[in-house]
């Protein structure tokens, strides 16, 4: 293997978003996008185990799971789905603004996204408090009132609600983290920080994360809220 050295350097333009380890901006952009996708694949596997668990237990306890799910509010779930879908749309508009370097478009649509995320969390809050009020929280204080679980077996109900809180809770944590990241992103855009203004890829990466959050909810919604009646 012969190594011929060839002179190389790229100008150390302080305004350039190019980092030293990359040869050109295209390589950098692709690297960041591929890196973000790899991270999202890990998130898919993270939630994947939970979806498996849900599948197994629902298949084992179909009737009881169906009865418990009747305690969930489809309206709230539907509004949440709408809100998240719209927030996904808002995010792509923000990314488009970043590509066109239109600061106002970015800030505006990111604000819309934040509003949607906040709405989602507020609705979730109401759902959760209603469940806590009915003592549907797994543990020693789980309700002993069969009516509260729609007539299902009380033990299996703890399993259902454990999965419900676990999966939607984990999803909610991801929404919250997304809100934090969006806040940081908005501050950086507002201040005109070069790292986001000169290069749209950071904004796009955050957008990818948010789409993933939306994807998880797209599957959670029908699985928990739209269960068909088992025959």
């Amino acid at each position: 293997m012969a190594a011929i050295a060839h002179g190389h350097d790229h100008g150390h333009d302080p305004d350039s978003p190019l980092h030293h380890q990359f040869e050109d901006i295209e390589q950098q952009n692709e690297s960041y996008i591929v890196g973000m996708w790899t991270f999202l694949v890990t998130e898919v596997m993270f939630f994947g185990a939970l979806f498996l668990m849900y599948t197994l237990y629902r298949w084992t306890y179909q009737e009881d799971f169906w009865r418990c799910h009747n305690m969930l509010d489809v309206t709230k779930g539907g509004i949440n789905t709408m809100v998240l879908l719209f927030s996904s749309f808002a995010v792509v508009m923000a990314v488009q603004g970043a590509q066109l370097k239109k600061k106002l478009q970015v800030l505006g649509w990111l604000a819309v996204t934040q509003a949607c995320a906040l709405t989602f969390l507020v609705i979730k809050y109401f759902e959760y408090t209603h469940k806590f009020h009915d003592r549907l929280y797994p543990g020693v204080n789980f309700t002993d009132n069969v009516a509260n679980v729609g007539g299902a077996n009380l033990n299996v109900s703890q399993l259902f609600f454990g999965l419900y809180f676990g999966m939607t809770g984990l999803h909610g944590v991801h929404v919250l983290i997304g809100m934090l990241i969006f806040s940081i992103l908005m501050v950086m855009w507002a201040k005109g920080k070069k790292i986001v203004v000169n290069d749209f890829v950071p904004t796009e990466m955050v957008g990818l994360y948010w789409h993933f959050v939306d994807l998880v909810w797209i599957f959670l919604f029908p699985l928990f809220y739209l269960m068909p009646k088992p025959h």
Partner: protein
Amino acid sequence: MSAIGIKPGDAPAEQKEPNYLNVSHTISSWLLTGDHKRIAMLYLVSVTFFFLIGSFAAGLIRLELTSPSGVILESDSYNRAFSTHGVIMVFFFLVVAIPAVFGNFLIPLMIGAKDLAFPRLNLLSWYMYVVGGAIALLGIITGGIDTGWTFYTPYSSMYSNTSVSTVIVGIFLVGFSSIFTGINFIVTVHKMRAPGMTWFRLPLFVWAHYATSVIMVLGTPVVAITLLLVVFERAFKLPVFNPELGGDPVLFQHLFWFYSHPAVYIMILPAFGVQSELIANFARKRVFGYHFVAFSSLAIAGLGFIVWGHHMFVSSQSMYEGLVFSLVSFLVAVPSAIKVFNWTATLHKGHVKMQSPMIYAIGFLGLFTVGGLTGLFLGAAGTDVHLTATYFVVAHFHYVMVGGTMLAFLGALHYWWPKMTGRLFHDGWAKITAILVFIGFNLTFFPQFIIGWMGMPRRYHYYYFAPEFQAYHIMSTLGSSVLALGFILPGFYLTYSLFKGPVAGSNPWGAHGLEWETTSPPPTLNFDQTPVVLDEVYDFDPVTEYEEAGSAQPVLSDTSTSTPEKDA
């Protein structure tokens, strides 16, 4: 195709040039570095620290087993000892060591890049490791864990009164460290190879780490969520593994082993990569069947995800599933066997120089083969019923993990020490150490095959029902003392070399690879000018290079022999 003339021991004046070690000396320049080489050194210090703690726990275990009725530990304490040993060694040493130290250091060098794709993510990786390790240690000190490193439910989720949650949080953070490293390696290998460095010109070390990174990325999140659910069950009473409420404890085992079996491939694949480098360079011969070795790494990564059930033959899982898992377990042995055959074939008609890294490599070849073959005994569902949860399993995985990964780690440490530190160590001591390690290892673990076959259960601190095992246990403990000596010695002569060792040139071993074409230690940006690769890495010219190759002694004057430096 041409060979480059390798001049062993270039001028020591190179040492005065700024390299990644001496470019800055402040603590913050180390703790806030983005340089992959510095991060690799940070990892080296931390993994050594955790290795020592894990070894101490191992010492306790071996001490306890010298008498049929136990020596100094109560049952509860012994449970903590082997759980600590397992958790520290698996999650904080084996999974991390070779990729984080040598992968981090060498992958950019080997592909001709200036750094990894995401240097700050790399640093975050190290911090997650250190913080996770600190939290796990905190858990171990404040009560320990007695569940075994496998955390089987419902004991770990419902009944154990130990610091399970704390330790799991530590493991969870280290999992992130793994994931970030994996992301970094994958993107770097895909996107940052030097001009001319096609996939099939890559050193096999890089292939191995690429496959490892794929496993890290795909498998680690599953164990992360599984262990997190155990914590949720302990803390919030989420009843997912609680049989009284309808949960299934065996589901935990499925999810746990879904990661933990690929995890053992995370532990061994980088070792395979090291082994390819050592064998090729010390036999001065191209690795036989390069493509087969490269693809077998990917095959192991893929097949490794569908064999997890061989840890669960007696767990009440479906017998049909057991059948399938047994079959696929035999299949997954094939790529590993291909590698072993190819390395052996590489040695054939090579010009072998038995310097210390080569001794480790040859040791690996033998010990890994034994470990791999005994794995087949365990992969056959019928014999596994007899052998599972005995010392046969313990001996098997120690043969592959210590005889395999640990020997590869030591071999890598010795081989790349001159590159990483710019110093040469005394190879005589290193050879003695390698032989001590080999002897001590076999003395420790071979008797365990025998008593395991005879029925000695694992995780028992007494065996009064079978006092005839005592002789074997004492032999094993004796061996572990020799092994410990072998592990301690490098601490002395390697540290000594840092201060008093001769200065190394860029290629003291006369090896091939882009990492040997820059100074020892390399400058921060690795290469003064980006290399352009024109041919594969292993094109040795055996005769001339053997005569010319360094014996890890510096050549202070430029007395290189006839082979001219060729370009193109």
